[in-house]
């Protein structure tokens, strides 16, 4: 077994110094070392998207990223993103459309959807479906997820337009 490595990782704005095994994945580091249980391990090989977190603003798969790769970086999990209110509109739309059932995939879904709406604020239904195909949901059949993202797209565009006009 390789010697442990000292890491300094800022998670949701707090700096954590930990000696960790180089082989430890970011999802396990967040869950087991720090107790951020909102990030979920679904497939552990980068397919299902339940373990999504952000490193320096970019969404990554926590099960394909080693924790040491985040050394010196700022990591955001669903807990921090929720507390900040940054995606509260999207979360509200998911609730209103019942775009989650068991909720296990939801953190990953929200981050992917938010990424899409930032990159493509006018994404149409087909583009939404294509973009969200990196995230598995076994409960919903996806229809309500697409509806919720469309609703958020429309409300964000409306807000952006009214922001421009004032």
């Amino acid at each position: 077994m390789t010697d442990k490595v000292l890491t300094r990782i800022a998670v949701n704005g707090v700096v954590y110094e930990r000696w960790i095994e180089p082989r430890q994945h970011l999802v396990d580091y967040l869950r087991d070392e720090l107790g951020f249980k909102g990030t979920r391990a679904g497939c552990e090989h980068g397919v299902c998207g339940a373990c999504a977190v952000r490193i320096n603003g970019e969404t990554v798969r926590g099960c394909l990223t080693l924790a040491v790769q985040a050394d010196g970086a700022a990591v955001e999990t669903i807990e921090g993103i929720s507390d900040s209110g940054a995606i509260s509109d999207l979360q509200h739309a998911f609730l209103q459309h019942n775009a989650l059932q068991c909720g296990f995939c939801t953190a990953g879904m929200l981050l992917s959807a938010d990424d899409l709406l930032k990159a493509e604020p006018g994404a149409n239904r087909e583009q939404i479906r294509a973009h969200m195909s990196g995230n598995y949901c076994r409960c919903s059949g996806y229809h309500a997820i697409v509806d919720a993202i469309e609703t958020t797209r429309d409300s964000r565009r409306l807000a952006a337009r009214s922001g421009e006009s004032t």
Partner: protein
Amino acid sequence: MNDLVELHVSADAAASLRHVGQSIARPTAKRLTEGRGVYMDDIELPRMAHAVYLRSPHAHARIVSIETAAALSMPGVIAIVDGAQMAQVCAPFVGTLLHMVGMRSPPQHAIAINRACWQGEAILAVVAESRAMAEDAVEAVTVVWEQLAVVANMETALAPETPVIHPEFDSNLCFHRELDTGGVDAAFAAADTVVEETYFFGRHTGVTVEPRSVLADFNPAERRLTVHHSTQAPHMMADLYSRQFGLPEADVRVICRDVGGSFGIKVHAYPDDFATVGLSILLKRPVKFVADRLESFVTDIHAREHRIKARLALARDGRILAFDIDDLTGIGPYSMFPRTSVVEGNQVVNLTGGPYKHTEYRAKLDVVFQNKVPTCQYRGVGHPIACAVTEGIIDLAASRMDIDPLELRRRNVMEDDSYPRKGAAGILLERLSHQQCLDKLEAMMDYSALRSEQAELRKKGIYRGIGFSVLIELTNPSAAFYGIGGARISAQEGATVRLDATGMVHCAVGVGEQGQGNETIFAQIAADEVGLPLASVRIVTGDTAATPYGGGTWASRGAGIGGEAVLLASRELRANILALAAVHLKRDAGELMVADGKVWDRATQGPLIDFAELARIACFRPDLLPRDFQPELVVTRHYSQRDFPFVFTNGTQASYVEVDTETGFVKLLRHWAVEDCGRVINPMLVNEQIRGAVVQGIGGAMFEECLYDENGLLRNGSMADYLVPMSSEMPDIEVAHVETFTRTSELGAKGAGEAGTAGAPAAVMNAINDALAPFVARVTSQPFTPEKILRALDKIHV
């Protein structure tokens, strides 16, 4: 301020505000959007150890020796336990039911002893301080195996030359059943048209995104066991743990917090569950087991490996005269405990032809053992198979007879005014609405316009197809499902409703929540039946120490059985609140009414007193009440459905697809579902049940299959290799309802969770075959991969 508002609200207006029937968002789901859910693996206990199971890499092999010394000396390793050691605390179990007459299955151990019978069967437990340490130690264990002859192919499992897996049996037969109304041969002889076809159903599995997980916490000081478990049936598991480990059930508590998908995968008692509890008892400390994704594929139950030969006889006018089917299904080496692995096949033979009026029916079922993962009940349980066979062969007949497929169904479905009645297979049907559903579906999809579009596009070389399915679904089961067969799986459900000291209502129900929205609909029912705002209702589920005894979630029983228990308890609590108010106000109860958390004067329509004040008096000032009156503000009521073996629902679906005849790819364009689940308590939640279930059905029809080689080894056991539906491949799904209330309950609700899965594969298959019709090509083997479609089109021959 409150007084002013109240002046403008009358008693009748307050009472008219109903929650049942409204699309109310789930109040308890907000925390799930914020990462604040608590799934089993999120729970950590002091001194908690982690179990990892060493699993057989072979489909069938004798264990010659196991060398564990190197592993035991590794850092953090606490114990290594084999099957014989486990058997000292956990008795073997047998997955049979008495009413499945003649079925057999050998005793199965929590950890295999001497021999592994499928790739993935656990033969050794390694317990360590962390999961990573346990996984490292598993790598250091050496097992010497002697490979045994493998029975992989169910088609030859009963052949005389095939080895018999279990030496105590004379063959690989688990169960055989025949149904025969007696006149089938005569009906076929008299038929104008006879069609026959063979249908294959690929073995698939549930792939819950949260894997199976269990945390056993045995306290040796008081000999009490607490199990944190991601499960659909907490009381069933508590009963099984009690009996397997010789503990009084009163000393076993099963707690189930958030569940990350279940679909039937988590309604079974897995050997791993027993082994993990056994480890906690042996090691006197909490032990957690969470399946990883790769072992999920070889240990979660599989389902649906069937081959069905079907024949259909019709009169000249399209009247169906008889169905004749022969079903063969492979279930792995053991029948799962305690629900058994024969239920799926049994339901196939009970349900085939279910919506139709024919009177002659013959079915044969063979359930065979093989060296693959055990199969058991997964969402839909037999319905998707029965429906695909029924609807597939009806479409074949329609094309042979040149009758429109919708018209042929109209001529044969049981009329809406003909109930109650019996189906040819012997099933009792309370009230169904096939005709209304077909009418609604036709209008919703604009059928004639769609046919015109299809014809126009076909001229341009674009091949689109329309496919229908008509389905029945058994829901709200009586004890006929398990209880009469000797399994201690509760058919009844209980609800305890109490008014707390602040005037809010708490409702504890045996049926849990796995994301369907059960807690929300229970709150809606309680709010209406007690008479207070939804925001004043709290629901408790998922704890055998805190909820009335119940069966949990399976066979689409949560709303119909659990909801009725909530309704009955809530009505009684309302009556008790009214009685308290009458005594306190010195009024006749008949002059008062309850609504919106208050007691009102019927005559003046004005509010008299609210629940909070009544609760305050009951709890803190009983001295103000007469000596002979004691308020009872906690009520428990139970419900079990005893009028029919099952309360059937019905529905229809349609699929519109485009087949690329060059590549074999199918684009699912649209999907429609009309569902009659009786009273719709929350339309949005029912729609989402239908949509999710439809997509699970599409998964089996189009993508999902556990592919085995001839040695019984799974070739695609990872999420990267096993395809499940993704958002880009799925169509929009339009849902509509017909509401035929069941008269078996006050609530009138039937189940809604599985019908989508039941009807989708048939509709998609028929749509693909409709698209392929110009080429006189058909596909009948699920999943309908591009390869199979190209073979049907005669474009690949290798």
